[in-house]
């Protein structure tokens, strides 16, 4: 019985928007790119790819394959010098002799370190870690930070905007005051303050910093939408049939303002990915045990002086492609959700 009912149904507004999006060629290409990145993120998070990004697979500053080994040819790593024969001086007993002997034995027993490659697909960093794998792993960190922080910011902003716009009056005054306080503090100062309060480095910290500081603009937009919608007849009609305030706010109005929320979410993912880079560059980013595009850029500062440009290039290209694709997708999304704006 379900199937005939479904075929009789008219397409909902979401379906119509999806069809408009399907017709937008630029939008679809950028969506495919974004999906590609997401797949990489999932694969990296599951450990299928780039799980061993921290392994020192190449020589220090290994060149990318397409550049060739060239002048950065590795100085052959000197083999571990054999233990010098200890002159046996009578009377002097080496107190560490036993320990050293054990260490030597262990080293000899351990499998020999695999030979380090002279070149890597996209080159290596200071410790010879594979830049390609770092970029992939960095994609995971950066996108998770961008997505989760944007979700957090949008969630905070939507709930606050809904209350402020729907109820107005005192609640609106209070939330606006909060908004003013947050926007009155210089941004970096605010970031520093929150970082100081959280007092630890890590992905979660970055997400919290971005989410807790980034809701302000979305809040104003959502609030304005709610003010516009609260006096619409369909909301009045919902009141007349007995729907509660919460039902009117989140069941009736929210789906009608969700296109604004969705576009803001998409915009903020891009914004937060860029912000993460800036934060990492400033040293408030993710910890040393993980890698993000921001920390890669931070490292490449020193490398550039030595002429090692590949880490910078890899992080920049990975980020630029995603940010451009995501921005174009956001534009297409906006056009599809609100065709009157075009």
């Amino acid at each position, binding site marked *: 019985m379900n199937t005939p009912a479904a075929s009789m149904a008219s397409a909902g507004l979401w379906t119509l928007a999806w*069809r408009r999006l399907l017709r937008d060629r630029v939008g679809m290409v950028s969506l495919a790119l974004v999906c590609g990145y997401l797949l990489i993120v999932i694969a990296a998070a599951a450990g299928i790819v780039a799980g061993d990004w921290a392994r020192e697979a190449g020589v220090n500053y290994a060149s990318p394959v397409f550049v060739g080994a060239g002048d950065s040819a590795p100085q052959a790593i000197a083999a571990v010098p054999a233990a010098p024969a200890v002159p046996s001086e009578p009377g002097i007993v080496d107190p560490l002799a036993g320990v050293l002997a054990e260490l030597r034995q262990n080293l000899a027993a351990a499998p020999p370190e695999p030979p380090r490659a002279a070149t890597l697909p996209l080159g290596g960093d200071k410790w010879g870690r594979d830049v390609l794998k770092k970029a992939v792993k960095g994609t995971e960190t950066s996108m998770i930070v961008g997505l989760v922080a944007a979700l957090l910011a949008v969630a905070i902003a939507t709930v606050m905007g809904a209350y402020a716009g729907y109820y107005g009056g005192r609640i609106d005054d209070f939330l606006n005051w909060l908004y003013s306080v947050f926007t009155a503090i210089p941004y970096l100062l605010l970031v520093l303050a929150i970082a100081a309060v959280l007092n630890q480095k890590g992905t979660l910290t970055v997400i919290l910093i971005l989410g807790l500081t980034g809701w302000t603009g979305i809040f104003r937009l959502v609030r304005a939408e709610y003010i516009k919608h609260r006096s619409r007849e369909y909301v*009045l009609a919902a009141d007349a049939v007995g729907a509660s305030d919460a039902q009117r706010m989140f069941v009736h109005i929210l789906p009608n303002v969700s296109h604004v929320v969705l576009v803001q979410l998409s915009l903020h993912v891009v914004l937060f990915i860029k912000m993460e880079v800036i934060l990492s560059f400033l040293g408030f980013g993710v910890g040393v045990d993980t890698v993000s595009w921001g920390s890669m850029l931070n490292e490449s500062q020193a490398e550039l002086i030595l002429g090692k440009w590949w880490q910078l290039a890899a992080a920049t290209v990975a980020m630029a492609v995603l940010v451009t694709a995501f921005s174009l997708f956001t534009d297409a999304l906006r056009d599809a959700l609100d065709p009157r704006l075009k």
Partner: protein
Amino acid sequence: MSTPETLLTVRNLKVDFRLDDGAVLHAVRGVSFSVLADTTVALVGESGSGKSVSALAAMGLLPASNATVLPGSMIEYRGRDLLRLQPREMTALRGAEISMVFQEPMSSLNPVFSIGFQLIEVLEKHLGLRGRFARNRAIELLREVGIPDAPTRIDAYPHQLSGGQQQRVMIAMAIACEPRLLIADEPTTALDVTVQKQILALLAELQKKRRMAMLFITHDLGLVAQVADHVVVMRDGEVREQGAVADVFRAPQDTYTKALLACRPPLDRRPHRLPVVDDFLKAGAVVETAERQRGLRGDEDIVLEVRQLAKSFYFRESLLRQREFKALGNASFKLAKGKTLGVVGESGSGKTTMVLTLMRLIPASGGTVLFDGRDLLSLTPAQAMTYKRRIQIVFQNPYASLNPRFTAGQILLEPMRIHGIGATEVERVALAHELLRKTGLPETAFHKYPHAFSGGQRQRIAIARCLTMKPDVLVCDEAVSALDLSVQAQLLNLLQDLQDESGMSYIFISHDLAVVKYMSDTVMVMKDGEIVEMNDADALYRDPQQDYTRRLLAAVPGS
């Protein structure tokens, strides 16, 4: 006497619109008519008939992005083919020879410039007048369109003028360059009846005095007799009938024209059922002649009693001072069971405020609303829930009163879930289907979203939503005002059938006095938040006691 010159000839005009989903809408399919100098031609039709599109095509104002005028169409103005003109030539022609008055004066005037500035701009651009000359000419024009105290008012901003005055300014701008042809697209639709009458008189007077031709576009056949010499009746992009106004009104040839003339509620009779277009299109259908009895005997049960209901809005003027605006003052009335109370009044008279207040949709400033012996206004929100479902409302704008993200089925199920109507979900779905059928909607409507329905169908969904709660009182706040005449007749029939069947009481609000008279047992006239007069419907229309009521009645088109 020589035959008058033909100003505008439209021949075989075809216009296609490309829709969002790639489909093509044939908005105008081969329309031909002509406008002679010094006459008024009325283009009449319901929404979607192509009347406005035809006029926009003549002005060269169709949106270039998705509208195409098909080859073979011809629009000729005094021997020049308008479809072949360069955009620059067309612009020059538009200002000087042909001009246009639109429906919404509020959105046609720029709110940040004074009306004088906007009027002078037209004079400077098209007539090359400068400085004092332009200003003096602007004052003359304002005087001509009946703006009182023109030398001072010229510096007023649009929001300082009433809707009628704004439309007068728009007309002044349109006639500033002494056009030979004035196109008026629903110029009075957004205005109250008394203002509408003045604007129509002004247009007719200007047309005579300036010897202009006028193309008057309207959905209201009642207006046509008042202003036009020649009428073109359109439907679905085609001309159904055209001829001299007197002939068409006396002896309409086309079935559709006949139906349009018949489905408007008459002021002098009260047929049991209004004829609808289908009645005429079906051959051999019998038009009912039975009359319906309306009016109170005096011994009916009272379902709702409103006493001294008042509502004030406050505007903060400064930190400490508030200005009070009395939207409703001391309204008292009784509503009899199974009867209809009609409410008429111009915009801003407090009609809607009154019903929203008595339904607790906005808080009241004072008074009592007795329902079942309890004062609804003094109940707590939780206590009021049980009464809430028993007074329901159908709003004016069917495009705004249904949540666009809900299917018709969800819209009907929601109130049942909230009030616990129907024991199981299956039962509720069955009831929803039954109500859709009862309100004349197809079964398939259940799964469709509001945007898939026409205005009339949406209003049926809104009515069905109210019926889910089996209300004792149904408030219809301009419920049929936004609909086409033929659809309006169908809905009025539906409302009467429902009342006959269930014995609901109606509070029927409308600015259309003919519709209110047709539907009501008692009629209340409101002005500036006060009840001016209340009487039995027939008695009030036959013998109005108040000046204001008399003025309202005199302004009814076609009376």
